[in-house]
């Protein structure tokens, strides 16, 4: 096992300045991505019920990630593409940080994070890097999270060429165009994806009976709503 150590004191600065209460759980999520692009690691520190304010000394740590079974771990670089942000999911409060990992983590390696808070060692879950069969989804997810419109545009265009009867290409290209503010084109792609979706996933079976667990293309509908609202110069919306 090889240990990869990075300095992440800045991550904890947010905790220091936010008056964040004592952490109770450290969760780690890996978005595998695809070489030559990046992988993403999201570290999420959720707070317990304690009102204890984090002590700055807890953040004096240089050890954060441990990657197992990686032969080139010394070459792996972690960068933070965006500032950490706090969250509150129905009372579960915490702070998150996204780490871009380059080169992308190899399939099968395991990554775990560890930090010490008030002399208490907190270890995250151990995440294993596993890629989907259609690995374009992994690349596209990383691109969406990094707001990487160009990569998403490339993926979408390639998929439209190779799988024109599938929604993926139009959806990804529509998302990319939305990022780029090209709303009419984006709406056109999303509507196209929606049409394909209904063709491929009819709500009713051959007898005309609705499929009980059929769900509508809500991701496409949301995208359409965002795009139209953006076009109108407004924002927001329910749910």
């Amino acid at each position: 096992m090889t240990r990869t150590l990075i300095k992440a004191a800045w991550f904890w600065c947010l905790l220091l300045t936010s008056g964040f209460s004592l952490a109770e759980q450290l969760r780690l999520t890996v978005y595998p991505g695809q070489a030559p692009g990046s992988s993403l690691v999201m570290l999420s520190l959720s707070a317990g019920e304690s009102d204890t304010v984090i002590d700055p000394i807890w953040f004096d740590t240089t050890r954060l990630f441990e990657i197992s079974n990686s032969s080139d771990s010394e070459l792996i670089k972690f960068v933070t593409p965006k500032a950490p942000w706090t969250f509150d999911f129905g009372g579960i409060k915490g702070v998150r940080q996204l780490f871009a990992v380059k080169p992308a983590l190899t399939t099968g390696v395991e990554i775990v994070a560890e930090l010490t808070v008030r002399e208490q060692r907190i270890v995250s879950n151990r995440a294993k890097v596993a890629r989907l069969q259609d690995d374009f989804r992994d690349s596209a997810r990383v691109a969406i999270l990094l707001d990487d419109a160009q990569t998403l545009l490339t993926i979408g265009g390639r998929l439209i060429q190779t799988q024109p009867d599938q929604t993926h290409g139009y959806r990804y290209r529509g998302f990319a165009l939305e990022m780029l503010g090209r709303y009419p084109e984006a709406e056109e792609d999303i509507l196209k994806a929606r049409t394909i979706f209904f063709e491929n996933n009819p709500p009713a079976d051959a007898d005309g009976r609705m499929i009980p667990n059929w769900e509508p293309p809500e991701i496409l509908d949301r995208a359409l709503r965002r795009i139209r609202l953006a076009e109108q110069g407004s924002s927001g919306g329910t749910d």
Partner: protein
Amino acid sequence: MTIPSTANALLAIPRALVTLCALAWANHASTDGLGVPLQTVESLDQSIQETLQGALESTESDYQEASKTSDSQRDWNYAEPRVASEGVEAEEDQEESNVVSSAIIKLKPDIILPERSESLQSTPESGAVLPANSGDPEDISDSMKESASETSKVTDRGSNRGSNEEGQSVVWVGQARITHHNYGGAEGLHTVQVNHTIYLAEVHRFDIIGEDERLVGQLVSLRDKKGGWTSFQDGWTRSACGCARDITEFTGSAYGGSDQKIVGWIYHSMVEDDPLGDILPNGAYSVKWDDISTDSSFTSTRTIIKCSESFTKSQSILEGQQAVAGPTWSLQSSMPIPMLPSHDGQPISVGRLREAFQYYKSDYHDQQTRQLIDGKMRGVYTQKIPIATSCDSKLREETQEWFVQPAIEVEPKLAETPYRWRPKRGDENNTLEFTVTVSDLPGVEGKFRFTLFDVTREKGWAVNAGDREDDALDLRFVEDDENFLAPKESDDGWVLEANRTLEEATIRIEADDYGAWGRLRCEVNTGGWWFPCVSMAGKRYITIPYDEDQNKIADFWEEQKGISGDATADADKTPEGRESGDGFSNYEEYRGFQIQGLWRDTEPTEKDLFVHNASNREEITSSVREFETKSSLTVHEINEDELDRASRIVNFNRGINQAVSRDQKGQAGVIVVVQELDDICGKAASDPSIEESLSWSPIGGPNVTQLVLVDPSCLYGTTTVHELGHAVNLWHPGGRYLVGDCEDSLPAGMDTPYSGPLNNYMRYRNAEKYIGPDNKCYKYPKHLEERRSAFVTDPTGTGMNAGPERWEYNTLDGKNYPYPVSGDATCSGTLIDKSPSLNQDAKTYPTGC
């Protein structure tokens, strides 16, 4: 608990006289009809016997009552064996009562008492366990109550002359064996052997008063307390009368429990010049008993060949037939019988006792005297009794052996398991400790033996935790006491035996499973006999934990949770739903679960759902909590190793007392996975095997829904709550798929999944289009939507789904549009108080879906 007390002055018998403990076996062959009560032929008439009974049992109301009941069909005549006539064609032996002599027969003063039977001598390690029944644990509540009553009698009389000064019950313990060899008239041998465990309690002491109110002796009455016997028979006999032949084959075994009827007496002379010395020497004793079979399998096959005709008759003694299916023992000796009046607690005069004695004689009764030898009853004798038949003669050879010694009864008490104790897993603070004292008397030591039995062997240590291959015993003795050998494992528990005698022993027991259950008994060996400890409830064992109904659930927990009885029941009521239950039995909810690394039990009246957040996201945890709050289900988020990932079964370590609702199939949990779903936000994916069998994708409980899938871009909304609703059998509010001019869409409208209360979690939202009352397709007014925030119990539509069809002004574009008016929900499966199910496997559509 009894203590041999040969050295005890109370029981030491200095002199010997004659009494016989005679035992007679009722020959099955001689009774022909094996279902017919076998009668022992002895030599006292009924009136004498009744009087004797009155004397010996006059104050034993319960015992006497039992005797009357069980022996109501029996001839209580005491008649001595005699030469009986037997005809080949006779259906029953014709045994007649002999004449009882009332003449005084002088006992032989010079008779030589037989040496103690070596085969029946007491040995410390081989001593029989008392009580005799060593099979299934026996509830002796009733007998113990009797015991308590007797003890009080003795204790209450402690100030009386001749009473036990220690205030302890004196018992006589030992063994006796009777062997009968019945030789056929022509050939063959039929053997019957009966082994008795004897446990006689001294019940009353009659003061015998001579002249000048002088106490000259005491007559002590004995009665059976908790003895027992086993017997077997085999062989065959044949008689022959001319050309007729009568062949009977015997086989079988039997045993009797503590309800055998044994009575007897001992005379203790207390003066040198005892005025009764000529007829009743010091130490004279007599014991007789008459057993009731409790479990017999004696059978015989009788083949009668009457010259040219043959006839075969097979009979067996059925279990529960309380006639004399087993052996019958009865008085058969030369000992005179005291004819005492019903005991009224008053002393008996010498003259009255002398007059009360009755004597009998017989050619074939035992002629030996019976007198305590070194304070013990012991002896052996053999007699041969010819039995004449109409055309030949048979021979019965009886051998009696017995060894019975006195002891002082002290019953060690085994305290019940503390009411509020429950098993845990290897928690030292949860160790049970039991201390047992041999006797209240100081200095009394014994060898202890503790036995854990009927111990559970549950897998792991909770229904979803621990080694799945583990089938070790769930209770064990703590090995840290130098007074004990290492515990030895048995099929169903452990045996812990002391390596020295102790006045008091303390043992400790630990559980290795939250559902651990077992029974504990203890025995103490003093003087070669194992005596059982008795629980406060009068039983010879206690349950661990305290569990009166022995359903494997601690009673305090049942009381605390408001349940009782069937441990396999799965009748959780809250919240309401399609049916009661959550797939976990009461026992499983008691045994408990590991939930995120910590053990906890669950409420047997509240439905529990287990969810694994496979992607470890706070958003899912938040949604699970929201789902729990709004559904009123008790939802537990568990780790990956707290359910079986392949089968999703939560109670993968289930064992005993599985939920009757699940028919041994186990109960699945819900796995929530965050993964790319492309165009949709979430999906409740049903089990492929169920889909294949139904040819459609069903909605159902956790046993139907294989996975709840949520796209990473939809974690912030109510998608997870909606899909979890599907995972407990909640449906969309309507199932109609409208087709009209709304291309490439699923338009909203009446009876569609958009119908009903707008805040229903199970409803679709934000349709692209809807079909108005004019059957035209319109753009859906999304600004009129409401956030999904509730599971609903009322199908009535709200907001834009409420009221009649109407045209209203749309603020978005300033035009009048018909309202969507999707109306009331039509699918009953969407109602939270009607549809949720945690138990179903695959069901059909609810109405209106």
